């Protein structure tokens, strides 16, 4: 049974099954949008935390690190409550839409992006702080230097965030509702099709998801290799 399902799965991929590719395209769209928003929030947050000194900084970094391990279903539940008709943002009518899924993923991956950015920037700031003072480098130029010199590490951070977003299931299931042709993404479709016994499409999506994970990890490795070759790690 498994052999035939696997062959069917490969067939679905090879014949560019419309449903399969619709799910794949929505998954990528949601995850990339969430990643972009998280980068816009996470890079400045992580950088600001790294280069500024203030009372309570240690508490902030501890909280940020703790948020990296947010349980997806809890995030899904909180976003659901916020977006449901009786919730504070219910009037927007976003529940069970791709936008709700993006919001849930943003809540999940922003702490990851911000915390990893903080770690990278903190190391760089310790290395460059006295030099920048000595060269009389002003803050905007210093920040752009941090971002540029940390570029390889930040790309790795981006890819880690994307990997987390694309493979997430709990939160998007709760706030998206797994509605066919509207909010069904790879992870929720795999869960549904498996429970229905439709192993071919579940396996096909699994293969695609695995391929995406491999591509992302391959890119991370390539970026790291290039960075270390130039001594930029």
């Amino acid at each position: 049974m498994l052999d035939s399902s696997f062959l069917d799965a490969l067939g679905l991929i090879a014949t560019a099954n419309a449903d399969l590719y619709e799910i794949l395209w929505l998954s990528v769209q949601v995850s990339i949008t969430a990643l972009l928003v998280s980068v816009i929030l996470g890079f400045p947050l992580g950088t600001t935390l790294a280069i500024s000194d203030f009372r309570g900084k240690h508490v902030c970094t501890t909280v940020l690190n703790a948020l990296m391990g947010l349980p997806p279903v809890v995030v899904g539940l909180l976003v659901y409550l916020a977006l449901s008709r009786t919730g504070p943002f219910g009037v927007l009518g976003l529940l069970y839409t791709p936008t709700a899924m993006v919001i849930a993923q943003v809540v999940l991956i922003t702490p990851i992006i911000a915390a990893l950015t903080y770690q990278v920037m903190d190391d760089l700031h310790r290395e460059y702080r006295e030099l920048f003072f000595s060269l009389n480098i002003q803050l905007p130029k210093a920040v752009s230097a941090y971002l540029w010199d940390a570029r390889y590490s930040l790309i790795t951070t981006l890819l880690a965030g994307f990997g987390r977003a694309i493979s997430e299931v709990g939160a998007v299931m709760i706030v998206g509702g797994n509605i066919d042709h509207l909010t069904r993404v790879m992870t929720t479709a795999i869960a549904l099709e498996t429970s229905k016994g439709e192993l071919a499409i579940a396996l096909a999506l699994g293969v695609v998801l695995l391929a995406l994970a491999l591509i992302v990890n391959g890119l991370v490795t390539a970026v790291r290799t290039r960075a270390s070759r130039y001594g930029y790690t």
Partner: protein
Amino acid sequence: MVTPETPASKQSKILSIETMSLGLNIRGSTLLNDISIQVTTSGVTMILGPNGAGKSLLIKCLHGLIEPTKGRFEIALHRCSDPIPQAMVFQKPVLLKRSVMENLQFADQHSCQRTDLEQALDAVRLLEKKDQPATQLSGGEQQRLSLARALITQPKLLFLDEPTASLDPASVLIIEQLINQASQQGVKSVFISHDIGQAKRLASDVIFLNRGQVTEHTDAATFFTNPQSREAQAYLNGEIVL
């Protein structure tokens, strides 16, 4: 303690550094204690002393990297009220994760022409490596680049914290030549070294520091021929000063 004198005719162009009872206390430890010096000489002021004497802390205080906990200091150029342009070369070179040329461009705040930057690299024998990643240079090359980068900021006062420690003789020679050249162009240098031969070659005056205190400040010739403090005598005799 003797303070070396400078002829009055030269003083109008010379930068002066004066510290008044400067002190640094960190977590109950006194690291610098009642440092009162007046440097009015041109050229290179050499700071000598055993490890842990507070040499690096003193120049970090003077450069503004560390706030002294006691006393004050003044760096002034006669008839000039503007802040004195300063630069510092650290013991361990800190280089941006970019090419050699980009490291120089980053520090340039005077919009130097590319040919000027190339000349600066040529002066430290790094022109051929201008497109290489700076972090892949050897230790000596990295320190030469650090010096070129400090000089491209056109400082009037240059702090150097053991810039030639553990470097190859060729790099030491290039760095010393550049320091001398900068001195001739009016750049005042405050240089930390453990190399007595180097101190003899470069210094116009010497500050000897031990356990956070200045035990002697005199002109170089006097210091090396007739040191006044027991610690400086022991140091010059190659004895271990604790």
